[in-house]
């Protein structure tokens, strides 16, 4: 780097990306000569008259103390070894210093959703500094063209304790599993437990049931699917328990809701207050799950929903999965859609802002079913909307698109729903 004359030296200077420590002028480059040592004296005494010295790159006059005095006797007395004779000594060669280790080269680990810049290995964007959501904080699943869901941390909570697990066969309406578990934030490790529970339930339910022959085939099929849902709840509950430290003062716990689609029919099981809705393209939307919460109990006693759901303690669960859970007795429901529509399975992070089935239906209708927007994208819009409302909780939304019963079955079949 060229030495600038003093008056041009700025306070900050731009350097190339890998700055080297400041060094004097490199050989081969002639800078301006700095001011000569030995400013013209205004004071008396002492004509210096030094010998010249070659100081690269340009020779500069340097003063030497001309007159050789004797050593001050006081110093010789204090440091008598000054006048000892010295053996000849060889100069030691310096060895190369150790090489410094350094931080990993900052290779980007992703693309920033906010500004499109690179995200550094520390998880923050290298341009705008936004934090990249980790996989656990925000993930999506799209197991087929007609099933998709998004699970998100929301804006306020520090961790995502919601969980989701989906599976789907390729043919629309043939077979799909949508599971959502909402970890209770007051409990420890519920984010891990909820995810394990959701996945275990999904894996069990993903095995397609087989429909037998005979006059009772439909009833038998329904019974078998509902039984597998009960089993899935047990399996999920066991997973939550196995992910909990038995000595923990607040063991992990979570809700559970699973929606199974088989051959165009919906089967729902739930524990706690995560929900499933059926939203037909035309007709009345309906909540298929049944909350186990104080708010629900209040509504059962006749208190209006708006009041019940905003009362203090409204969200207190009366049933849940976990070590200290009361009986694992899920609410069960079968529903036979009469026409096309959406199965929505979601956590309270969404329905807190749109509890009535009508509100949910209005939200979904913002993107008409005729628009070619895949379910995972629609679910993403629901999650974004919840975050726009404040994102006070983790939010999960999973959707399955059904086209309605096969035309041969009937022209307009009214929905049929059985509660178990």
């Amino acid at each position: 780097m060229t030495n600038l004359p003093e008056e041009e030296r700025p306070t900050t200077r731009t350097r190339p990306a890998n700055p080297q420590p400041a060094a004097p002028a490199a050989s081969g480059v002639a800078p301006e000569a700095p001011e000569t040592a030995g400013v013209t004296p205004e004071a008396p005494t002492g004509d210096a008259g030094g010998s010249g010295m070659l100081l690269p790159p340009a020779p500069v006059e340097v003063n030497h103390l001309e007159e050789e005095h004797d050593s001050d006797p006081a110093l010789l007395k204090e440091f008598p070894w000054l006048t000892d004779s010295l053996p000849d000594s060889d100069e030691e060669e310096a060895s190369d210093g150790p090489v410094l280790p350094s931080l990993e080269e900052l290779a980007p680990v992703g693309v920033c959703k906010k500004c499109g810049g690179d995200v550094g290995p520390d998880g923050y964007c290298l341009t705008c500094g936004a934090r990249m959501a980790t996989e656990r904080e925000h993930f999506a699943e799209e197991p087929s063209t007609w099933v998709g869901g998004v699970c998100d941390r929301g804006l306020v909570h520090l961790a995502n304790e919601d969980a989701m697990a989906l599976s789907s066969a390729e043919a629309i309406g043939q077979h799909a599993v949508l599971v959502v578990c909402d970890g209770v934030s007051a409990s420890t490790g519920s984010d891990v437990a909820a995810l394990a529970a959701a996945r275990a339930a999904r894996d069990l339910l993903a095995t397609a049931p087989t429909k037998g022959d005979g006059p009772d085939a439909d009833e038998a099929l329904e019974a078998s699917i509902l039984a597998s849902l009960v089993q899935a709840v047990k399996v999920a509950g066991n997973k939550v328990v196995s992910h909990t430290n038995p000595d923990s003062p607040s063991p992990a716990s979570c809700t559970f809701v699973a929606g199974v689609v088989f051959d165009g029919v919906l089967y729902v099981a739930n524990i706690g207050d995560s929900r499933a809705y059926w939203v037909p393209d035309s007709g009345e939307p309906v909540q298929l799950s049944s909350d186990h919460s104080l708010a629900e109990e209040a509504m059962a006693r006749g208190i209006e929903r708006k009041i019940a759901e905003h009362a203090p303690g409204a969200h207190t669960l009366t049933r849940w999965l976990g070590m200290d859970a009361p009986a694992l007795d899920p609410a069960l429901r079968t529903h036979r859609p009469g026409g096309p529509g959406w199965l929505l399975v979601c956590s309270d992070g969404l329905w807190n802002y749109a509890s009535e089935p009508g509100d949910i239906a209005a939200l979904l209708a913002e993107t008409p079913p005729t628009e070619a927007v895949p379910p995972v994208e629609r679910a993403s819009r629901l999650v974004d909307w919840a975050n726009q409302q404040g994102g006070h909780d983790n939010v999960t939304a999973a959707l399955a698109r059904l086209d309605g019963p096969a035309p041969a079955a009937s022209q307009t079949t009214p929905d049929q729903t059985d509660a178990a």
Partner: protein
Amino acid sequence: MAQFSSMVYQNEFLSAGATDVNAIVRVGITDAGQAGVMSGPAGEIVIVDISGSMGRTDMLAAQRAAIVALQEVLDGTYFAVIAGNHQAYLAYPPVMAGQGMVRMNTRTRREAQIAVSRFRADGGTAIGSWLNLANQVFASMGPGLQQKHALLLTDGANEHETVQQLDSAIAACVGQFQCDARGVGTAWEVAELRKIAEALLGTVDIIPAPDQLSDEFAAIMRKAMSRGVPNASLRVWVPQGGRIMFVRQVSPDVQDLTGRGVQVNPLTVDFPTGSWGDEERDYHVSVRLPARTVGQEQLAARVQLVVAGTPQTQGLVKANWSDDESLTTRINPEVAHYTGQTELANAIQEGLAAKQAGDIATATTRLGRAVQLAAETGNSEATSRLLKIVDVVDAPTGTVRVKRTVDKADEMALDTASTKTSRVRG
């Protein structure tokens, strides 16, 4: 092998619409090793005032101290000795051409010490010329000399130079070598040596009596020799739209680094911090970001210590907008403490300046504030120095009376030590 660490102390939670993020970043090095091992040999220059004002006692003490300092310089280190009055002289090595420094070994050490023993006090004081010579001597060694340090002693004010000449010399030396400056007695100007020390990443202090010189010089040189990590920079990245408001070292002493930044790229600035031994330094970093809405979370800054162009440790300063008042109204204790310590340093310096200008009213207010802050922040060293200048009526309210007669050495001691800070208690 040097080990690097960093810690960030801050309250990351901002209320909606808030923009300013303050953090204390503590950077530490252990196993730094000796100077001159990590990246090539180190260079040391001892600069001794030989002006006529150095009476025999002072001159002897200075020679003694220089001899002792040379004793501490490790074999293999390049070194030279400069004697200065109204001119600067290369007292050792007595070279006629080529490089102006030689490697330390038993022979060169002895020769230099004998040269020092021959000094005679005579002439005036032009410290800029001493700095210029030191700069040239270092420069004569070429780019291979990485870690350069000078120890400068004077006893008087810079009477044989203009302010511009001294400032020019200082500016030419910025980034070239570090310099610790000491003044013996009370005839020198704290402000002049502080200018040098601040610009050249060194310390300034008073040595009230000449018999303390040797110990002080030995300590300085030992510290310089223990600085195994050369030329580290504090590198601060802020996101697009963000702005560095200031970067200050706040421990072990207050230094405003803000004006010394070198832009590395549009988002990143390097602040030179000189060489490090085994030590911890605390930095107060203040960043202004565009205000964001509740729920947004991002980095306000990445703060790294960079050696030889590579980051060795990194601290993340975060910003997290929240509507939870219990989170956003918290004050981080380290940030509060060092904000107080910085104010303490300013209060002392302003108080002393006012006193010297004869404005006792302002001096009383500012030094009173200093007493209050020193008590609040547990800086007992500052308190005991202040007590030599003021009588305290009530420390918690900062009510003081400036003493009628103050020992000049005590006043200068308070001045030079004004920037020293204490750590957070508990």
